[in-house]
């Protein structure tokens, strides 16, 4: 890994060209500082590993692995159908048909043997026992009882239960339909009440479950990434510089602290954007895997509706503004914390704590009661999350959008002022 960045002699192998670019930079101190910060970040193996490479590998795994593992198509569960009632073979054949769609590996036997041993050893994920008298009960209008033997701690057992119950449910509905036909009754007779849900939205348009989930989760996810990506870089740029004792020499230059901070801020924004995009990209890969592995009925209609032009504009604007404001606010908070801390370790603790504080409102907003919304629109950070939500869910409510946007901008100004104040202190160099 070390050789990727520099040889054993310390001669740089990569980013050498970017280093040479320094000569031709325009005489803008903030730009020079930003150049140096980006150059240093690319040379720091730990930072790049933690902030870019790790999320790119981990995020798709974290998102897609559970879905992949729980998808019957990834690893079909092993199901054994024990047919003790020969006339129950119809249902057994229906379950066996799962093999055609590669959702299960099914074996049909007449004697299952040691059920417990088979399930616990993992030879079989689920045993479906069709006991004697099962068909008799069905044909005489009684309830036919199936017995499932499964491992409650085994994920594959749960997957097997899911696919079998789907088949059994369809079979049961068919039996019910025949029974009703035989006595001339309609399905409506046994369903006296049917619920009809009418969606009430500010746009007056309906939304699919997938649309609502995506609209709620996507801006929050983007906001979270924008806010939390900066921590590692901020620590290195402020507390790291102090620990490496380079800040004092830096401050001897004829450049104001404001210009130096602006340069660091610019680099931080660029780096957190790279980190955020890497995380977002890998998250989308993960979601893509997850959707592919879901059954078709679940995946259908989750995302495409958001691509309607009227909603797309608000979604795009919502995401862009949330990323910009969230990123800048997060950077200002992180710089403040890193400037306040006396050591690198202390900075890590502050940043970790603050990240949690920043994350909680973002995560909590989708679950907050409607009556809390006016307050949440004017509280720090939650105002940003509410803005993202309003842009997607309430695009017609301009008052709400303006309130949360203005509050977010005001908080950004406060955090920027605070970061400049902290960075301007003598103790930023000497603790």
């Amino acid at each position, binding site marked *: 890994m070390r050789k990727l960045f520099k040889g054993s002699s310390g001669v740089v192998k990569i980013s050498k060209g970017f*280093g040479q670019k320094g000569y031709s930079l325009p005489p803008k101190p903030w730009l020079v500082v930003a150049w140096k910060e980006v150059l240093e970040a690319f040379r720091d193996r730990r930072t790049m590993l933690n902030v870019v490479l790790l999320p790119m590998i981990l995020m798709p795994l974290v998102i897609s692995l559970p879905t992949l593992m729980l998808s019957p198509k990834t690893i079909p569960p092993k199901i054994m159908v024990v047919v003790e009632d020969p006339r129950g073979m119809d249902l057994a054949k229906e379950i066996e048909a799962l093999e055609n769609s590669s959702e299960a590996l099914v074996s049909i036997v007449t004697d299952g043997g040691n059920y417990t041993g088979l399930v616990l050893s993992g030879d079989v994920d689920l045993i479906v026992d069709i006991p004697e008298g099962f068909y008799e009960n069905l044909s005489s209008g009684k309830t036919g009882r199936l017995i499932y033997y499964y491992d409650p701690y085994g994920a594959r057992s749960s997957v097997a239960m899911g696919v079998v119950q789907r088949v059994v449910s369809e079979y049961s509905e068919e039996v019910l339909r025949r029974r009703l036909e035989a006595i001339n009754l309609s399905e409506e007779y046994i369903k006296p009440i049917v619920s009809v849900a009418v969606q009430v939205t500010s746009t007056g348009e309906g939304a699919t479950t997938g649309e609502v989930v995506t609209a709620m989760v996507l801006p929050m996810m983007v906001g979270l990434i924008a806010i939390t990506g900066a921590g590692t870089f901020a620590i290195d740029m402020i507390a790291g510089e102090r620990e490496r004792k380079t800040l004092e020499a*830096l401050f*001897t230059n004829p450049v104001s602290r404001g210009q130096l901070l602006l340069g660091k801020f610019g680099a931080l924004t660029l780096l957190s954007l790279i980190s955020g995009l890497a995380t977002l990209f890998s998250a989308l890969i993960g979601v893509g895997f997850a959707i592919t592995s879901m059954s078709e009925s679940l995946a259908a209609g989750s995302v495409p509706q958001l691509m309607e032009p009227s909603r797309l504009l608000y979604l795009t604007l919502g995401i862009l503004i949330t990323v910009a404001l969230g990123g800048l606010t997060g950077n200002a908070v992180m710089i403040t914390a890193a400037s306040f801390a006396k050591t690198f370790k202390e900075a890590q603790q502050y940043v970790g704590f603050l990240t949690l504080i920043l994350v909680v409102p973002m995560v909590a907003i989708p679950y907050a009661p409607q009556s809390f919304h006016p307050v949440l629109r004017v509280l720090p950070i939650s105002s940003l999350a509410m803005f993202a939500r309003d842009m997607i869910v309430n695009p017609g409510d301009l008052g709400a959008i303006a309130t949360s946007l203005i509050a977010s901008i005001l908080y950004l100004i406060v955090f920027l002022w605070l970061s400049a104040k902290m960075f301007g202190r003598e103790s930023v160099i000497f603790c």
Partner: protein
Amino acid sequence: MVAVEAISLTKAFGDLLAVRKLSFRVEEGTIFGLLGPNGAGKTTTLRMIYGVLKPTYGTAKVMGVDVRENPIEAKRKMGVLPEDTGVYPRLTAEENLVYFGKLRGMDEERLRKRIKELLDILNLTEKRFVVADKLSRGQKQKLAFARAILDEPPVLLLDEPTLGVDVMSAREIRKMIEEYAISGKTVILSTHNMWEVERLCDRIAIISEGTLRYEGSKEDLRRIAGKREFEDIFVRLVRGEVIEKAV
């Protein structure tokens, strides 16, 4: 002409008075030695002059520019080698110089020429593309020295420039200091090294417990104290034994 003037410089850290009403003048084109034991206030004094510490009271002027009133302009007149070299470990030797050169407003042509010249003089040319982390202590110190004189500022402030440096590197740095002063520039040198002071400095100030014990030429100091050994004079002044005679 006076290059640097400290006017009642005072610095308190809470209840601790680190520097007390320190005043001295450094003439242009001279090497001025700032002497004192550990914790005497030498570094704090320098830091107030080069603008990273704000004086509690008093001020300093560099080439006539007040460091409190116009810190940016004052910093333009100074090159600084702080107590810690402050070189960036992940940047190459060349990139370290480019960074500071650009921050000091040097244009590309001049910067390229000057970096090549300094790396040659300080025998660092072959380390040009090597990250500073891989340089020896002496090489880092030479790099930091090169950084301080990059844009040839009229005043150079050096805090222990040869401390912990190997003999060869220390010799090169001392030679550069002498040459810098010969070219008409002013150098303020904080050091523990008596031999260095005796050899390099035109005038000296001795500080102890944040207070100025002596300011003048080394010859005057020797004559007043009546001793030949420089180290003895220093020890006696720091102890306060010859304060009345000397100041």
